[in-house]
């Protein structure tokens, strides 16, 4: 499979040294495209203060557009989209890019860049094929984020109107829509898309550093911990909600020699939910450890030493990269049905507990911690391998080549 076409991918964040799930997804798409397309260029239009590490093709906002996007973190992505047509400097750079690179295909990652980009394309009179690579249903996510942050109703309504309009435009007019789950795909069909391809989130092959594994073993052994259940997540709202709702702040159901290990922003941000005058909240850290932000090496080491991986996700769009990691790891998993969106076919694998109420979720954690790990068969192992990007993006790549 090979194509001589030139692909331009535009997003709102750089992918140099990717950290969050969105960055990893786009970086994986770029890598997979490079295997089949003659030229692939990635350009991020972004706020430099939000992403200090970037590539030379990336374009950061300047002037008042930068200031506005920097300070309005709830809708900075919408502001980036608007800036593409409102900022003369930015528009000039994008027009120059389109003129010089002459993309056959433009892939918009998330809907936000398309807010401004569609106007530039129309004004330049060019007709590249458009791929909409969705990561979430953005209206749902944005409403939750803004509401919980206390944004004014009018601001929420205004932001949702913009996003709904551009998502609908993309669904109806893009040449190809990629969705991370069947539910998201169905949503785009309901907006008027003729079809969609499923491009679940995946992961790169896990490479465990022996030093990192040894480090974690030593740490936990020193504290008399025999088994750990890990929840790896950013402070992204759905992670926080899932943690509070499905696991909670009372961890007496964890056996005394086990711990909940929180990695990423979720542990740090959880602290704001404690009532320090309520002594019952003071026991949380008797059974929980927050290890903060970890390098890839430390993270993969933590996964390797985990007995159980927790996916208490109850909200949010898209599919969960952590689910893919958990599946590939071969560890015991306790998850919600929601967390397995996009990975439903893997639910037949052994060592997976699905629980959708807090009581059942906690009971499942306890059971998983004390239940021996079942060995996967060869075919089950092969099935688990398909969560890697190479497999999860296969349909997207094949369809993109056909455009």
């Amino acid at each position: 499979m090979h194509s001589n076409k030139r692909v331009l991918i535009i997003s709102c964040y750089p992918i140099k040294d990717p950290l969050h799930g969105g960055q990893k997804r786009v970086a994986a798409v770029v890598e997979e495209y490079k295997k089949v397309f003659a030229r692939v260029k990635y350009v991020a239009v972004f706020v430099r203060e939000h992403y200090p590490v970037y590539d030379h093709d990336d374009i950061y906002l300047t002037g008042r557009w930068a200031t506005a996007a920097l300070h309005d973190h709830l809708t900075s992505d919408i502001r980036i989209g608007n800036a593409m047509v409102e900022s003369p400097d930015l528009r000039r750079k994008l027009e120059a890019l389109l003129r010089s690179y002459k993309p056959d295909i433009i892939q918009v990652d998330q809907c936000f860049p398309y807010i401004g980009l569609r106007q530039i394309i129309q004004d330049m009179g060019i007709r590249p094929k458009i791929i909409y690579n969705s990561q979430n249903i953005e209206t749902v996510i944005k409403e939750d984020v803004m509401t919980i942050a206390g944004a004014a109703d009018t601001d929420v309504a205004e932001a949702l109107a913009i996003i709904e309009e551009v998502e609908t435009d993309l669904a109806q007019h893009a040449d190809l829509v990629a969705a991370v789950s069947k539910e998201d795909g169905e949503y785009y069909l309901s907006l008027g898309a003729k079809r969609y391809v499923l491009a679940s989130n995946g992961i790169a092959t896990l490479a465990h550093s022996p030093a990192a594994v040894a480090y974690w073993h030593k740490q936990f052994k020193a504290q008399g911990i025999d088994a750990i259940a890990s929840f790896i997540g950013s402070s992204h709202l759905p992670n926080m909600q899932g943690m509070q709702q499905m696991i909670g702040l009372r961890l007496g159901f964890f056996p005394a020699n086990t711990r909940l290990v929180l990695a990423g922003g979720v542990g740090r941000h959880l602290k704001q939910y404690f009532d320090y005058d309520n002594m019952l909240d003071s026991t949380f850290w008797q059974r929980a450890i927050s290890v903060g932000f970890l390098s890839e090496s430390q993270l993969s080491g933590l996964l390797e030493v985990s007995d159980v991986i927790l996916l208490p996700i109850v909200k949010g769009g898209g599919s969960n990269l952590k689910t893919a990691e958990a599946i590939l790891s071969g560890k015991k998993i306790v998850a919600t049905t929601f967390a397995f969106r996009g990975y439903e076919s893997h639910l037949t694998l052994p060592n997976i507990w699905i629980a959708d109420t807090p009581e059942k979720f906690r009971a499942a954690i306890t059971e998983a911690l004390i239940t021996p790990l079942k060995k996967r068969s060869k075919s089950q192992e092969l099935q688990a391998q398909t969560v890697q990007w190479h497999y999860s993006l296969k349909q997207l790549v094949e369809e993109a080549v056909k455009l």
Partner: protein
Amino acid sequence: MTDAKQKIWIDVTDLSVWSGHFTGTQRVTYEMSLRFYEQISDVHFFAYNERARNFYEVDFGPINQTILASRMPAEAGKRPSGFHRPSPKAVLRTQSLKAYHNLPFRVKQQLTPARREQLKKAYRTFNSVSSRVKPRRQVISSAAVPGAPAVHFQKADIVVILGKPWDTMTFIDVLRDQKTAQPFKLVHLVYDMIPTFLPQVFGQPLPANYTKYMFEALALSDRVIAISKSTKQDVARFCREELLQTPKTTVVRLGDTPNGLTVLEDKYAPSGLKPGSFILCVGTIEVRKNHALLYAAYKEAQLRDLPMPTLVIIGSRGWYTGDVIYQFQHDPLLRHSVKILHGLSDEQVDWLYGNCAFTVYPSVYEGWGLPVAESLAKGKVCIASHASSMPEIAGDLIEYFSPYDAPACLALIQKYLSVDVRRAKEAEIQAKYKITSWDKTFAQVADAVSS
């Protein structure tokens, strides 16, 4: 290698490091430990050494001896009648045994079993005789006996915690590690959950530390012994809210046997007090004991121009009481009606009990309420707060008030100022109140441990 033979291990860390007057906790620990020592075979004692982060076997004998020595009267030869002093022979034997017990553990182990048993028996006899004396002051003995063997509990063992190890947070961590390695039976006596549910009446960081300790202790315990139904309910509530499994819980009744002293000689009267002219409030002067309610009741009496007896408050100072003590001591209309006394001798305390009109106990929360029980055991009327465990002590036998209702407290004080009313109630108490011996408490504890 696992020793299949069951051993009972009693934690006496508190007793081995405590100094000063016994608190209620130390009193219970001592009374139970002593009876385990005297009545149960193959019982062992251990103490926690924080520096070494380990448990060490200790001999209860020297600990008991130190406690007994500290109970000796301050003014030798001036004990009231009825006080039983050990004979010179017994004292000599004690000194010999003390020398033996101070030998390094490994040296003692080299003595023949027969000789060791002989010495031990003689020592127990002495302790049994002399243990009737109420403690006055305890001197520290070291929990870390040089050369004592570290204790690693075995699966068949029963480990009993009677004291207050939450002062040393690593205690429970080490216990948890050992129980994970060898799942022995853990029996934990719980006095109350007050620091968890009423953190406002304690100084920091006690409430959080206590709560963390109890979280671990209840997670590990196979059986809990609660000192009241109220405490049992609080344990269950805690476990429910923390999503812990509630351990099987047995309620025991604490002993309230009088100390044997009956001191009515006025030479022990604190200055200015006349028999029958005052009411008594016994207990640590801390915010939880709610002396502020008594202040409010006395002020209300002034407003209504009601006659009030002198209020005698005895107890050492505890958490957050500076304000109320200041008010009592500097209120020009009250200061002569209130006496706040510390550091009294046993005889003085006993004189106060014997000569007060009645006692009052306005505490906002208790695990049990020993001053209520002690008052009744001495035949004295007690009017008490109806909070938590206190109604369990005497049921309908005495009258209660809300710890937040000063007029109700005042009304009961007024009621019992009547000599006739008081005499009638005292007769009823004499007839109906059943004193609980420490032996009976021990029988309940021993049952719970072995069940």
